[in-house]
């Protein structure tokens, strides 16, 4: 029982990470109706920037916010310079561009920072938390940070006029343009926010998995699984899905399929959800007009 509890709580901790990346995926999907395969690598690259800043002597929290700002600009730039100029609606071409971005971020990070594994600091204290051994301070901190990010995003979209404009631009670009919303900039803003959320996830996951250019490959898959379970257009669902996937991964890994096949859980979840309930738990059903 105690071991089981350990697995569940450990799962919640990694689930928080999946939740943040899933949240970033959902944000880009909401703004553009695309699945961003480069999301994980963008987060990884931002985390390297944070690492470089911290190594240069910048205090952790200053580096944290500087990195978020950097990631925001990065996302903005990708939309403004790359995605906006691609005049195609062909899904194949868009996916190819995303894969191109993924490969570029991965190789540039490897080129600049080398492929050796690096230790990334945690802002939270070390040692046991309140004398229990289930949850480390960093894991609890990561969960809290995820929840704070979710709340901030929810408040932004719910209470600010900019958030309203972004939702409008995503839902109906044509009418939004007519009422004076600059749709292209709203899309860029969506990319920027998603990249910033991804950067937070990267900085929270790096102390656990260590920093290297390939650290996000598995996490991205779990995040996709999480986003699909929650419903690709539901931010709250993505967060819940993230925690669910984290727990499922740990419990199934420990008791059913074994640790080596943990990624197989993501594969089965992704295909299973797409086949059985493509709209996820909280997503809206997509209807296409013939």
């Amino acid at each position, binding site marked *: 029982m105690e071991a089981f509890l350990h697995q569940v709580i450990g799962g919640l901790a990694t689930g928080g990470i999946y939740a943040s990346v899933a949240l970033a995926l959902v944000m880009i999907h909401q703004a553009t109706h695309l699945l961003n395969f480069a999301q994980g690598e963008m987060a990884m690259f931002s985390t390297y920037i944070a690492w470089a800043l911290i190594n240069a002597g910048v205090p952790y929290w200053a580096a944290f916010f500087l990195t978020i700002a950097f990631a925001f600009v990065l996302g903005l730039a990708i939309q403004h310079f790359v995605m906006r100029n691609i005049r195609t609606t062909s899904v194949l071409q868009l996916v*190819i561009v995303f*894969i*191109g971005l993924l490969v570029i971020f991965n190789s540039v990070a490897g080129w600049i920072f080398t492929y050796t594994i690096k230790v990334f600091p945690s802002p939270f204290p070390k040692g046991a938390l309140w004398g229990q051994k289930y949850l480390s301070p960093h894991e609890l901190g990561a969960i809290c940070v995820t929840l704070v990010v979710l709340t901030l995003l929810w408040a932004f979209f719910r209470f600010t006029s900019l958030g309203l404009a972004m939702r409008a631009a995503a839902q109906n670009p044509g009418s939004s343009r007519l009422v004076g919303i600059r749709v292209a900039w709203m899309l860029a803003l969506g990319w920027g926010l998603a990249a910033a959320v991804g950067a937070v996830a990267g900085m929270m996951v790096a102390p656990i998995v260590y920093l290297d250019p390939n650290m996000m490959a598995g996490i991205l*898959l779990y995040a*996709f699984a999480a986003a699909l379970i929650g419903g690709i257009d539901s931010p709250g669902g993505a967060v819940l899905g993230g925690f669910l996937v984290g727990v499922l991964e740990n419990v199934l890994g420990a008791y059913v399929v074994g640790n080596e096949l943990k990624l197989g859980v993501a594969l089965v979840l992704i295909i299973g959800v797409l086949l059985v309930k493509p709209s996820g738990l909280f997503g809206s059903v997509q209807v296409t007009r013939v």
Partner: protein
Amino acid sequence: MSAVVPAAANSLSPAASRQRLQWIGLAVLLIAACALPFLVSNYRTFQFTLVLVYAIALLGLNILTGYNGQISLGHGAFYAIGAYVAAIMMDRFGMPYWSTVPIAGALCLVVGFLFGLPALRLEGHYLALATFALGVTMPQLLKNKAVEKWTGGVQGIVIVKPDAPFGLKLSPDQWLYLFTLAITVVMFVIGWNLIRGRVGRALVAIRDHPIAASAMGIDTARYKSLAFGVSAMYTGIAGSLGAIAIQFVAPDSFAVGLSIGLLTGIVIGGLASIPGAIFGAIFIQFIPNIADHISKAAPWAIYGIFLIGFMFLMPMGINGAIRLGWARLRHRIPAQQKGG
């Protein structure tokens, strides 16, 4: 107007002459390909063997992604299955190398067809995502303890390069090149016949307008899962040939990078083009080797830049660019003759 009419009036003879030119070009190319191993070193021969292997895999991926419009980011998984079939049959069961190729193809046909059945319900991004997950997961499945008895786990399997049969005075590399070349030619002829016929038109129709295609009576589900199976079969055959040439298989050689490399190959060679598979194969075999001298990361950076650059500048790939250039040249020359 005057320039168009004469061209249209005797359109038959230029078309026929162009076709003859194409046949002659193909024959010259084939003779050159046969002569190649006797002109270059064994190592270069080995590299060209891999070009042929990639060409088969790219043709397979192109049937699925280029012609049928189903995106696969996980074809490395089928390549891995083919490679492991060859390695396990040769190493564990002592089967001859040539017998592994059809079995790898048959197994991948079945696996691809079965994966294609659920994939029928997925479109666009979601299919890309599902296949991406397959590609990322494959190395882990191969490392799994349950199958370690056959796959050799992380260490992989070392196999022996076959010697030339019938007492032919060829080095193993030369023989393997010619063996691979023969299979490549067969696979390309099959692929060409498949694409230019009824099946190929059905595949393209499904890609361009699935609703119209099914309204015309094309069994969309059957053709799509068939395309998946055939495509996986090509890639599996390539995988088995690749394993025999490299003499080694290990899970980490079939990471998601392989799938991305194959995708890069068809984009650069040309989506929905048969010669494009060869251009793409030459690219993914030689460009990373050259770029490797700059930095370990450089080959991938080049892949990425080429992927995005081609989508911006040459969405039809090298093959499309050559056709375009050729068409422009042909239009210019008669125009000049008329003017002069």
